[in-house]
């Protein structure tokens, strides 16, 4: 390499005349960013394997241990809400990978310093965040629906000998499709928290705290308080949509619950966008 070599490349006028790059270009750039880092791919593979794998495992264990010491109570639960059971353990653990991925999409920009390159390229900042959300949402909705329907078919076919549940049963299609929606919004929820906190460890702890710990804490509050607060917590409200039947104690309908979760996510995104604009990068 030499400077004379540089001369040719710089002077040859190979750069097209300036035409504002549109949002489509930013979507392409964010897609390049997501696919060119191994952790994204691995986290998504982990998500699919953990979710469908655990759904299969727990369904199989239930069927093979149908008559056990604690079986009657558990079996009654499975019979009463087989869809809730299918979307229980697998989704419950698999969703944690999505929490981590959503957080990492923002925090890795800060931890690696690439945020500086990103913001030099898109100094208005907000379009960069918007493009990142759109690309992640599209990836998530495709993958999460595949995982949701995959989990349903795997789980229901293993449970088949004990309980028959079909997509055409009341509420089942909505619950399955809704599970994919819930996981998608959860990813964006985590992304928003990542943008607010900017540090991976802090943001992952926060998201997992909100998803796993807050419902438990709210459950410790005096009964009517606890129930009301619990109903409006992001994860509790959002996951209502993955149950085929409403329980009599539910304060919100599945779609209302999902709406509450979406409102939480939009509020956090707005805060994240505001701080992205205001803070020094």
């Amino acid at each position, binding site marked *: *390499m030499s*400077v004379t*070599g*540089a*001369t040719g*490349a*710089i*002077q040859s006028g*190979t*750069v*097209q005349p*300036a*035409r*504002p*790059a*549109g949002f489509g*270009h*930013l979507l*392409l*750039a*964010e897609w*390049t*960013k997501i696919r*060119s*880092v*191994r*952790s994204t791919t691995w986290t998504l593979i982990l998500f699919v394997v953990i979710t469908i794998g655990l759904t299969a495992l727990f369904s199989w264990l239930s069927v093979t241990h149908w008559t056990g010491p604690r079986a009657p109570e558990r079996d009654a639960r499975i019979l009463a809400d087989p869809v809730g059971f299918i979307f229980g353990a697998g989704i419950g653990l698999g969703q944690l990978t999505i929490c981590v991925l959503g957080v990492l999409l923002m925090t*890795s*920009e800060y931890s*690696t*310093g*690439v*945020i*500086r*390159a*990103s*913001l*030099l*390229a*898109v*100094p*208005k900042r907000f379009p*960069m965040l918007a493009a990142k959300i759109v690309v992640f949402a599209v990836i998530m909705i495709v993958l999460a629906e595949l995982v949701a329907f995959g989990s349903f078919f795997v789980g229901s076919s293993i449970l088949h000998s004990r309980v028959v549940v079909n997509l055409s049963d009341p509420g089942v299609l909505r619950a399955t499709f809704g599970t994919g929606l819930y996981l998608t919004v959860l990813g964006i929820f985590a992304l928003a928290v990542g943008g607010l906190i900017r540090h991976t460890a802090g943001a992952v702890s926060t998201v997992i705290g909100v998803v796993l710990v807050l419902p438990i804490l709210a459950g410790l509050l005096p009964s009517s308080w606890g129930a009301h607060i619990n109903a409006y917590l992001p994860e509790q409200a959002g996951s209502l949509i993955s149950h085929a039947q409403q329980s009599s104690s539910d304060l919100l309908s599945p779609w209302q619950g999902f709406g509450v979760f979406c409102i939480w996510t939009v509020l956090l995104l707005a805060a994240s966008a505001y701080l992205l604009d*205001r803070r*020094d*990068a």
Partner: protein
Amino acid sequence: MIEAKDLVKRFGDKVAVDHLSFSVEPGRVTGFLGPNGAGKSTTMRLILGLDHPTSGFATIDGKPYAELVNPLRTVGALLEAKSVHNGRSARNHLLFLAQTQGLRPSRVDEMLDLVGLRDVANRRAGGYSLGMSQRLGVAAALLGDPRVLLLDEPVNGLDPEGVLWIRNLMKHLASQGKTVLVSSHLMNEMAVTADHLIVIGRGRLIADSATEDIIARGSGQSVRVRTPDVERLTALITAEGGKAILVGDGNGGDGQQAPILTVTGVPAPRIGELAASASLVLHELTPQLATLEEAFLELTSDSLEFGHQDADAQVRLADGSTR
């Protein structure tokens, strides 16, 4: 053209940039010089819109950075802090940047060839040496063929070949009429690279002029004189208001016999005239240029009169790090 107007940046109660105004003209390399912690990087980040100024503003070709359409096509920046994801390859890093500006992907390969990273382009950037990372940074800065370049400490940690490469590249870009602002705490590097210098200390502007003027302004400017007739010349110079100090008795091994004087306060042509009028023989009459380093220390120590004692320590620290 880069313009800073009354820029102020405070971090808590610490003032990093203190009412800084300057402009950087196209067609020459402008050095941005100051000891470590003087506010150079912060000023560059303010110009680039990464940090928000507490007050004042900076523009590039008359516009704030955030108002530029496809900014990488106007401004290229190499920041001191790392701005590449360790897990991403050089090619993908440049590719996503190119995509944000609507540049065609083949531009990425041109840049990889330019900086000599083609062979390692698909490797993760985390494994790159400091020199390779710096080359990737240069590739990113030049990606959009910008008219304006800001390089923050570009030669830090580079080997001599890399230093020469960067130096020639900057001169070359300036010769094409581009605006080049390059920061450094290495005064001697700036002396050979920059045509113009903006010197700051403690976030304040200390000097803004041509490199040779800043060197000439150094009070260390002196004239080296060899004459067999030391006493009479010394008397003439003293009468003229100058000062002559005997620094060598002339019996050194260099074959010259005449003693050496260092004269300050009288310029070389005047010494020649004085000697001629008294019919004194001179064996040597050489103006000694102060180094930029001396000039810089002179400048920054002036700024200490405003009561920033610990800036003195910073200057000495920066001075030490050039050795």
